[in-house]
């Protein structure tokens, strides 16, 4: 809400500098976003013509010598008619800005230098008159700023008004607030009206058929007006507040709206059919053409103002084109009303029609101030458009406003604020806000807010008002007293942190992506979404690239990966704990946290002189193995079955625990990779964090350390190429009697002398008994039995 200080001064004495006022308003809950200077003209002063002579080399030009007192004396060339010694005129110094944006310069005209310029009203931006130099008052002091001479200088504050304070969306509202916070009085302003016969009711009848949506409707008629431009003072004020001047009729309605906060609408009375207005729901009426010429479809529940035939206005939103005031309008029918905020909001939102009027109606206008706003407009119509104000209002007000009483306890005020205010102080604060405060004894007040403060309905609302006027800054900081209870986090937070620490420890950098993706990415990478589930689409997305919630964290990571590779990054190892969403068509959607990661390009650097190597399946799997080991999750299995379609079927594994698919790891499918500009293989993984968290991770318990020595034997077996290394581990795990403590696969070899199509796997096997030292013979026997078990059970051969 823009507020002119000059205008404000008409309603309240502001005894503060603009900066102080801004500070006080800000600390009272009305922060000021900007302070603007309006109506000033830099480099333009009043000058007196002290000499006038013809230009030596040009017939139509004259050389004026203009005195600007302390600002000096300029010789200026002008071709304008009617200049005479003694006149006061606007004088522009070089550098002065004109209304069209150009700057005044000293120029040479036919051998003589013009050191500045005398200006027309158009050049200054005051009117369209360009043919003559503007004349100032004969007593205008030479050398004074033009703004001071014209009295146009004004300061405009852009006040940020919160949605609960509709009453502050006017000069009057801000003036009331200033009066309250500075303890001054309002300067009451009553409209002075000269009414003439006939009574308004003879010309127009009003009926409210939807009293639930319209609380009050006031009509006035101003007859015999002449539509023309508005006077300068009004145009300057409207423009300073960001409202374009149209003509005196429209300008008056806007002016009063800005001043009183009550939106008004002017109909051309001759174009209202049947001399009758009905406030009703649109019902069977289908369309209305509004002032802006647009045809809108109506909803049966839209509130409209209709004449005898058709809707002539969308209540509180915009007037109709057919009944609009035009140049030929003679008699104006003025509407001032109170519409239900929610009704105005629904219609204006649905039609995308937001206006200064709808903005104020949505935030509720003062139902008791409706007639006075109509009177103020009528007064201005009579003054500026030559109209006759017909006698009286038509005022339809089915259920007049009744003051509400709210009990406010001084003890409660102090208990909520942590203050020790005396009851008298509390009452005094509230009275400054025009709240009627009746003392009910024992520090309980019966408080009646003024009609424009509908937001004061409960005790807590009054507590805020007391705090606001007392000053939030004056309330001392205290620390709450509470039982010394240790915080209980959901266990998941700590588990999540552990997961992230383990991944960071594996050299991965954490990323956080916007959780929006395109339908393309969701089609390409479905992540852990079960078959039959679809992505969650956003009804009102900001772009098609961000039209769905992700099915997989990999979609975001892939975009980030590509960004980094384009920046020249040759090595990326990154992870994210993101959220994924899918739906089975139910209103509720599935929302899960998923750990995702990508590995790309060079593996984290080797030492100097060692060959760099590319990230591989083993690297990606290693990151996950490290994660599971760190979480003490030992029974995870890796299988080549049920590989999701976005991964390479031969270079990927599913991560399974107890028959439950926990995640996957592998190379991106070539088709998916083809949709990116990445050239090297992308290794990706995803783990369902919610599943991970659902596993009761084994409690950590100490196992006694065995004192007996470890004996290590190597074993190499030759197997078919298709043989899976896991088989050996499973077989060993199935034979605890072999006393194997640990197994490590340390080499895989293909080539001579191993037959082609086969590979040699070399294991280092550690034996230990818990109760004795194993002898060489015992170990040899165990090793032999192990070899036999593998050979017979797995079909491998011992390597010679």
């Amino acid at each position, binding site marked *: 809400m823009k507020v002119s200080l000059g205008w404000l001064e008409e309603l309240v004495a502001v005894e503060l500098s603009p900066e102080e006022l801004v500070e006080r308003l*800000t*600390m*009272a*809950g009305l*922060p000021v976003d900007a302070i603007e200077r309006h109506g000033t003209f830099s480099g333009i002063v009043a000058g007196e013509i002290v000499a006038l002579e013809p230009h030596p080399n040009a017939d139509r030009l004259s050389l004026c010598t203009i005195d600007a007192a302390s600002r000096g004396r300029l010789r200026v060339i002008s071709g304008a008619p009617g200049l005479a010694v003694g006149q006061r005129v606007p004088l522009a110094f070089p550098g002065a800005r004109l209304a069209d944006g150009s700057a005044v310069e000293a120029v040479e005209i036919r051998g003589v230098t013009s050191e500045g310029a005398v200006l027309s009203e158009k050049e200054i931006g005051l009117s369209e008159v360009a043919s003559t130099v503007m004349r100032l008052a004969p007593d205008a002091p030479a050398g004074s700023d033009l703004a001071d001479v014209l009295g146009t200088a004004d300061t405009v504050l852009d006040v940020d008004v*919160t*949605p609960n304070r509709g009453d502050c969306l006017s000069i009057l509202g801000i003036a009331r607030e200033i009066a309250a916070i500075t303890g001054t009085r309002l300067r009451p302003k009553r409209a002075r009206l000269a009414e003439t016969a006939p009574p308004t009711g003879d010309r127009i009848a009003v009926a409210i058929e939807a009293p639930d949506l319209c609380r009050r409707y006031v009509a006035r008629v101003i007859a015999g007006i002449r539509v023309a431009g508005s006077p300068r003072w009004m145009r300057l004020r409207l423009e300073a507040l960001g409202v374009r001047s149209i003509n005196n009729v429209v300008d008056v309605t806007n002016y009063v709206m800005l001043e009183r906060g009550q939106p008004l609408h002017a109909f051309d009375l001759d174009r209202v059919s049947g001399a009758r207005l009905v406030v009703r729901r649109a019902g069977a009426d289908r369309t209305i053409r509004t002032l802006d010429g647009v045809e809108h479809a109506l909803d049966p529940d839209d509130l409209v103002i209709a004449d005898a035939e058709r809707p002539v206005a969308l209540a509180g939103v915009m007037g109709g084109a057919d009944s609009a005031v035009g140049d030929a309008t003679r008699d104006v029918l003025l509407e001032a009303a109170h519409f239900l905020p*929610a009704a105005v909001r629904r219609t204006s939102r649905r039609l995308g029609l937001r206006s200064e009027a709808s903005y104020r109606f949505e935030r509720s206008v003062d139902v008791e101030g409706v007639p006075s706003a109509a009177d103020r407009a009528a007064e201005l119509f009579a003054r500026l458009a030559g109209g006759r104000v017909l006698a009286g209002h038509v005022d339809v007000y089915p259920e007049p406003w009744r003051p509400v009483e709210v009990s406010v306890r001084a003890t409660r005020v102090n*208990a*909520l*604020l*942590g203050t020790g205010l005396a009851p008298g102080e509390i009452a005094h604060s509230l009275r400054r806000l025009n709240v009627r405060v009746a003392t009910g004894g024992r520090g309980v007040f019966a408080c009646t807010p003024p009609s424009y403060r509908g937001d004061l309905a*409960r005790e*807590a609302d009054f*507590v*805020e008002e007391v*705090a606001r006027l007392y000053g*939030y800054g004056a309330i*001392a*900081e*205290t*620390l*709450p*007293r*509470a039982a*010394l*209870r240790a*915080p209980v*986090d*959901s266990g998941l*937070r700590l588990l999540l*942190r552990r997961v992230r620490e383990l991944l960071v420890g*594996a050299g991965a*950098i*954490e*990323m*956080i*992506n*916007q*959780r*929006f993706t395109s339908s393309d990415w969701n089609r390409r990478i479905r992540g852990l979404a079960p078959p039959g589930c679809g992505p*969650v689409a*956003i*009804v009102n*997305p*900001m772009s098609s690239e961000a039209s769905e*919630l992700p099915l997989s964290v990999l979609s975001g990571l892939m975009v980030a990966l590509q960004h980094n590779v384009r*920046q020249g990054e040759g090595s990326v*190892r990154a*992870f994210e704990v993101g959220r994924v*969403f899918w*739906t089975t068509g139910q*209103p*509720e*959607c599935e*929302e899960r946290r998923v750990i995702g990661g990508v590995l790309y390009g060079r593996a*984290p*650097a080797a*030492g*100097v002189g060692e060959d760099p190597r590319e990230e591989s399946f083993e690297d990606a799997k290693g990151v996950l193995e490290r994660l599971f080991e760190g979480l003490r999750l030992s029974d995870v299995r890796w299988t080549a079955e049920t590989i999701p379609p976005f991964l390479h079927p031969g270079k990927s594994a599913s991560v399974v625990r107890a028959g439950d698919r926990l995640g996957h790891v592998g190379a991106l499918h070539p088709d998916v990779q083809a949709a990116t500009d990445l050239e090297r293989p992308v290794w990706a993984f995803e783990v369902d964090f919610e599943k991970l968290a659902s596993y009761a991770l084994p409690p950590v318990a100490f196992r006694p350390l065995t004192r007996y020595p470890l004996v290590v034997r190597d074993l190499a077996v030759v197997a078919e190429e298709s043989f899976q290394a896991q088989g050996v581990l499973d077989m060993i795990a199935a034979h605890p009697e072999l006393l194997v403590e640990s197994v490590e696969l340390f080499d895989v070899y293909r080539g001579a002398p191993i037959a082609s199509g086969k590979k040699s796997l070399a294991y280092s096997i550690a034996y230990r008994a818990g109760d004795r030292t194993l002898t060489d013979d015992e170990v040899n026997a165990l090793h032999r039995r192990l070899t036999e078990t593998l050979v017979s059970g797995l079909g491998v051969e011992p390597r010679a």
Partner: protein
Amino acid sequence: MRLRYLGKKGELTAILRGMRELPEAERRATGELANVVKQALEDALRDARERHEAERVARSLAEERLDVTMPGRRIPLGRFHVLAQVMEEAIEIFRGMGFSVEEGPEVEDDYHNFEALNLPADHPARDMQDTFFVAGGRLLRTHTSPVQIRVMERQCPPLRVIAPGAVYRRDDDVTHSPMFHQMEGFLVDEGVTFGDLKGVLGEFCRRMFGAETRLRFRPSFFPFTEPSAEVDISCVLCGGSGFRDGGPCRVCKTSGWLEILGSGMIDPEVFRFVGTDSERYSGFAFGMGIERVAMLKLGIGDIRLLWENDLRFLRQL
């Protein structure tokens, strides 16, 4: 030399071994002599060995030189995202004051995101938060405040809770992104005051932004708090003077203050929705944007840097 004289088959050993064959009288003298010789030899040998070892060490110290400027063998270093770091820091401060951490869903229903927070349908305050909708009338939560409702629905006071997480609004420019992070906090107990709100947030801001930080509480409006307060801190760059390096401060734009938190006393209407007796209990709630805190703390001007996931950026912070 040690082997020649002192070894198992050494000459001196042989002499000592041969003593048994000597006559009694000679045996004693020879034995003593042999032992003296043996001792002398052993001492000399030890000295020589020590000298030799010392020389070797000295030579090593004098000659062996690694190029210590060669890079070490790199153990890959990961890093937490800067937003996560800032979030953790904030969480730690509140945990220190006894706040528990809670979470909630990001796809919310209208009831928890708006209605129970005293934001009825068709209320203009809904304009403050431009909402993304998904199918089934559900929406992406516009703030972390629904966690307040969810926690109060299932737990009774006293409560001290913070709820960090992602939230969504239809907004996209240099300082806004459609998804961002908030941290909600609330404390409900008997006798909680606005002064307590000031105290706890003062404590937090001074830990987060430095002990010199000053706070300013301004009246504002949030449908779920009454009274409501906007919290400003003194500018992290210019210290609140509004000017720096002889020019207007680029962070606070000469105001000297930075808006950092929204807060207030929990509205009785919210208590009514969750069935808490607002006569017996009172409480305060607050919310802040983690991105904004991170940007102010680290001097980041463009929010998009936080979302680009550029490794050069992530490795820096």
